[in-house]
């Protein structure tokens, strides 16, 4: 029966699809475009990273400044991502579990950092904490450096990764409604028990998805961090900034070696993200990714 049907569809094209030759042509154009625009740059990173051999690659990664940059990048992400996770959970709880005035406006506001240029995200902190500002000299009086130091880099990173977790969780938790939580509360659970034992298990895959995207951006942010870091070698250069410095010093193979680590991070992020989508598609969200 099935083979008979397939034979029929083979003979006569369905009125709601295109001729196979047209399909093949369109697939060909799309694949060629994706290969040139997306795959080629990825290939180039690894190709250039090993252009001077495996030894040069590992030597570049073993360099003192490169090691410092890797440590700083991990540290910044380790501070910025958890803060944005806490914010994402709080915002999605308030927005998804309650009805209040101005909710739609609040959702738009949360996405705001996405429409701000990364350079401007850094600039606002320079204006707030730099020379000629009120806060900068005042904090300096207490020995706290914000600009050209770790706090500035963390702040700029939080700014650009601000929406990631929240925008993953809000649609997911809105979809799930409040039924499970109301049931838990009516059975005698308190608020925290409800949150940890009911809500978190419900949203764990969506949360992980948001954390993945947030982390990738936090570790890879360039423009905003470039503005606030001051680029002090070995102290305030994150991995992307170190890549830029090496590249501008015509040390391309070392720049690409460090860049290949970031590209690897991007690939791992994509693989995990796709795995989550395929395995837990329903539990991640009716989101737009």
């Amino acid at each position, binding site marked *: 029966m099935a083979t008979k049907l397939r034979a029929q569809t083979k003979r006569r094209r369905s*009125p709601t699809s295109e001729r196979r030759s047209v399909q093949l042509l369109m697939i060909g154009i799309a694949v060629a475009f994706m290969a040139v625009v997306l795959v080629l740059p990825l290939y180039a990173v690894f190709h250039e990273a090993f252009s001077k051999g495996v030894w040069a690659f590992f030597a570049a990664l073993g360099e003192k400044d490169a090691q410092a940059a890797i440590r700083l990048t991990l540290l910044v992400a380790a501070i910025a991502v958890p803060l944005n996770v806490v914010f994402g959970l709080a915002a999605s709880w308030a927005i998804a579990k*309650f009805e209040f005035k101005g909710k739609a406006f609040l959702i738009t506001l949360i996405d705001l950092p996405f429409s701000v240029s990364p350079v401007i995200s850094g600039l606002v902190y320079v204006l707030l904490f730099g020379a000629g500002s009120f806060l900068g000299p005042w904090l300096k009086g207490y020995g706290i450096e914000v600009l050209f130091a770790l706090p500035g880099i963390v702040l700029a990173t939080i700014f650009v990764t601000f929406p990631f977790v929240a925008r993953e969780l809000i649609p997911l938790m809105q979809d799930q409604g409040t039924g499970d939580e109301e049931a838990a509360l009516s059975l005698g659970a308190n608020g925290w028990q409800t949150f940890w034992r009911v809500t978190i298990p419900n949203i764990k895959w969506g949360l992980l998805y948001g954390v993945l995207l947030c982390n990738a951006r936090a570790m890879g942010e360039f423009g905003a961090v470039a503005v606030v870091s001051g680029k002090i070698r070995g102290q305030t250069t994150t991995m*992307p900034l170190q890549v830029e410095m090496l590249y501008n010093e015509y040390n391309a193979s070392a720049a690409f070696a460090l860049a290949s680590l970031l590209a690897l*991070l991007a690939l791992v992020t994509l693989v995990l993200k796709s795995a989550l989508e395929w395995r837990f598609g329903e539990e991640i969200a009716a989101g737009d990714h």
Partner: protein
Amino acid sequence: MSAVVSTAPRRAWSFRQPSVIPGFGLTLGFTLTYFSLIILIPLIALAVRSAGLGPEGFWKAATDARVLGSLRVSFVTALMAAGVNVVFGTLIAWVLVRYRFPGRRIFDAIIDLPFALPTAVAGIALTAIYAPNGTVGVLFAPLGWRIAYTPAGIVIAMIFIGLPFVVRTIQPILEEVSHEVEEASATLGANRFQTITHVIFPSLMPAILTGFALAFARAVGEYGSIIFIAGNIPFVSEIAPLLIYIRLQEYNYVGATVIATVMLMISFALLFAINLIQAWSRRRYGYGN
């Protein structure tokens, strides 16, 4: 917050609807505080700084020849890149949703690469490819065409970072377009081409416009992936975010603030336009992001 609501007599207007779920005050309070500290206050600092210039001073700084030149470069190249992305992004979304071919899932996953790959890494990779001795650059060099270090290079980088915005906006809408309307169109005598142009495309139009606006907004603000490939010649290939960065390096905070304010006003206008398109699309077609 919850105490206020529960003790107050029933009123016609209330900020939020009553609910048995706890934590509204805590989560909304945290959300608003965190948002204010990280996003709102820094942006207000920017606005205050530029308001301090007075309308005349602001206008003078904003219409400086080099500023206008950089804005023109940014907007013209971003328009071109968004145009290319709309054409190929729509085609790719169509191919990924409608057709089956080997490697489809891998290509579907790799569309998100520009979200995951740090911009500085993309920047140096694209430069390596499109430089006169690079994989693609070498093909065009004999023709006397230079891509890297010209505005064409800027467009290439913007195409890279903007592509996922278009594809990911159109994909879910294309999946929702019901087969019944296509069948109805076919039974009413339309050929496949007419069905696509008269039935499918009108319902995709809001998504295509949104994708265009998102890709355009991202391209205008982009910094990391462009500065390596652009050449950065004032009036020719110097983008506005780079000029902000240069002004900051010169400690010309006023100059940087003015360019940033102009760019922010334009991106917020774009954001508003995107919201309008989506509201219109929801009313007209019953779906949207």
